[in-house]
């Protein structure tokens, strides 16, 4: 048998996938419906509140993971966009500068537009230099929020009251754990399905090709900057969603929302969950949130426990929790 024929036989055993898009949409619909059960299965309001906070983290971690998955870029400054979303919403609502609906739109679109413009520049840079640039952007915004007292009381932060209604619906529910947990869950599910669909789309596939091999993509005829900038914008939009949800739930904004430690934790969450999978960072965020919560209850030096957990996960699950699950699933499917 020739080498070619031999290879054809060797490789032909792999089955072709069925309609993955249909499966994805079905799974998304089931997850959305399941979200409505959360207030009933949660043991207390505190548990619901904690889970809602974990979901905010999950959105931010998803944003970091998506940037890595589609652009191959590590960000240490994604909190810049969640923070900007929080501040835009909080400041506009607190000062009654525009209606609540307009504030919401600005809070989502401003970070998205800024990320797109930044993406046109920093997408050309890779590795440590890229990570440092994102860090610089995040810390620059942190410094602005920290020092500009007239904006939102500087380092003290600023609390604000939500308007009575947003889009004709009572806004009070945004600060009710039972409502927020369902809302945040629903948004997370929609975001995850949307990102998965994007990854399977033409633009998503081209972005992945550019991530894999920028030079070859150029020689196939592609501009390599625009798809990357688009991924930055989408990731920032997801981060801004996290920021707006957090700000509206807590009714409070503070410079710490921009801080690099928030971005760093989001990156750790993405790594723990599995940054090569759309759902991985969200799973990592929820896992790390509860590890942090548990560690904080049992030890004063809880970051050491979190650090230990990170070391264990990195060594035993280099592709993260979802990576390990995927590996086990493939092994069992082969048997």
């Amino acid at each position, binding site marked *: 048998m020739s080498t070619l024929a031999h290879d054809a036989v060797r490789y032909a055993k792999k089955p072709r996938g069925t309609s993955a898009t249909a499966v994805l949409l079905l799974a998304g619909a089931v997850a959305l419906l399941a979200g409505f059960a959360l207030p009933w299965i949660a043991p207390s309001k505190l548990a619901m509140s904690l889970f809602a906070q974990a979901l905010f983290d999950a959105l931010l971690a998803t944003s970091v993971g998506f940037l890595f998955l589609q652009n191959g870029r590590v960000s240490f400054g994604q909190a810049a966009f969640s923070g900007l979303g929080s501040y835009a919403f909080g400041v506009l609502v607190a000062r009654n500068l525009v209606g609540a609906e307009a504030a919401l739109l600005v809070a989502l679109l401003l970070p998205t537009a800024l990320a797109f413009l930044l993406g046109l520049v920093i997408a050309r840079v890779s590795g440590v230099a890229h990570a440092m640039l994102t860090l610089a952007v995040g810390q620059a915004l942190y410094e602005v929020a920290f020092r500009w007292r007239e904006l939102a009381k500087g380092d003290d932060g600023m609390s604000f009251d939500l308007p009575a209604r947003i889009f004709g619906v009572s806004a009070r529910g945004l600060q009710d754990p039972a409502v927020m947990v369902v809302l945040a869950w629903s948004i997370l599910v929609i975001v995850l399905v949307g990102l998965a669909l994007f990854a399977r789309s033409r633009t998503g596939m081209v972005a992945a090709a550019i991530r894999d091999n920028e030079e070859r993509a150029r020689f196939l005829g*592609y501009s390599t900057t625009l798809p990357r900038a688009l991924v930055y914008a989408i990731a920032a939009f997801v981060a801004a969603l996290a920021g707006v949800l957090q700000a509206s739930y807590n009714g409070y904004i503070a410079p710490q929302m921009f801080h690099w430690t928030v971005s760093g934790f989001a990156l750790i969450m993405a790594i723990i969950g599995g940054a090569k999978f759309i759902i991985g960072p969200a799973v990592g965020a929820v896992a790390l949130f509860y590890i942090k919560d548990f560690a904080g209850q049992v030890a004063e030096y809880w970051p050491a426990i979190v650090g230990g957990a990170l070391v264990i996960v990195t060594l035993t699950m280099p592709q993260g929790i979802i990576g390990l699950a995927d590996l086990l699933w493939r092994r069992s499917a082969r048997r």
Partner: protein
Amino acid sequence: MSDIALQGIGLTRRFGGFIALDKVDIAVKRGEIRGLIGPNGAGKSTLIDVLSGRAKNRAGRVLINGEDVSGLTPQQRRKRGMARSFQRTNIFPDLTVEQQLRVASWAVADADIAEVMDELHLAGLADFPAAQISYGDQRRLDLALALVGRPSVLLLDEPAAGLTTEESFTLARILRDLANRWNVTVLLVEHDMQVVFSICDRISVLHLGRQLGEGTCAEVRANPTVVAAYLGTEA
């Protein structure tokens, strides 16, 4: 339309004080497979880089089907029908074979990928990430990426590098066949002289950045200067 599909006129490329290409002229007719041979450092890959837009030429012009593309980017040259492969395997390791061929096709008006997969025996590998297939398959995939959309001009930089003798001849046979049927003009850099002499219509010889000679395979084999500089007496 001009009979010349690919033309380089007075192409010059310098790296500091080193002259990698020194006023090189080359003209390849439509449908021709032109071999480009010469010892290491002769400027073969540099010439491919300059023709494809990967490297900027200090002087000279590049024409595709009579159109001056000297100031155009690689993307713009691709739109005008020029494709290339690289010395080292240059694919998308995390994408499946089919995904990356689709990506290649979207760049050239949704060109058919089934024909390329069939011609290059990649259909059975469609669902496999490129990183998981064998080196020989990766080299054929590399060529397939360049062939999507039937480019009018194809620049190949050592496509048979690292392949077994059998794989090299299979690749050469596919290339000769496609050039004939699809009327693709090919400029081929290759060190495997058996492959070069088996499929090329004409051969250009570079040495120290200058063109040493050009002719049919028989003419090049009989050229004493080329034999002395590169082929030796074994060819």
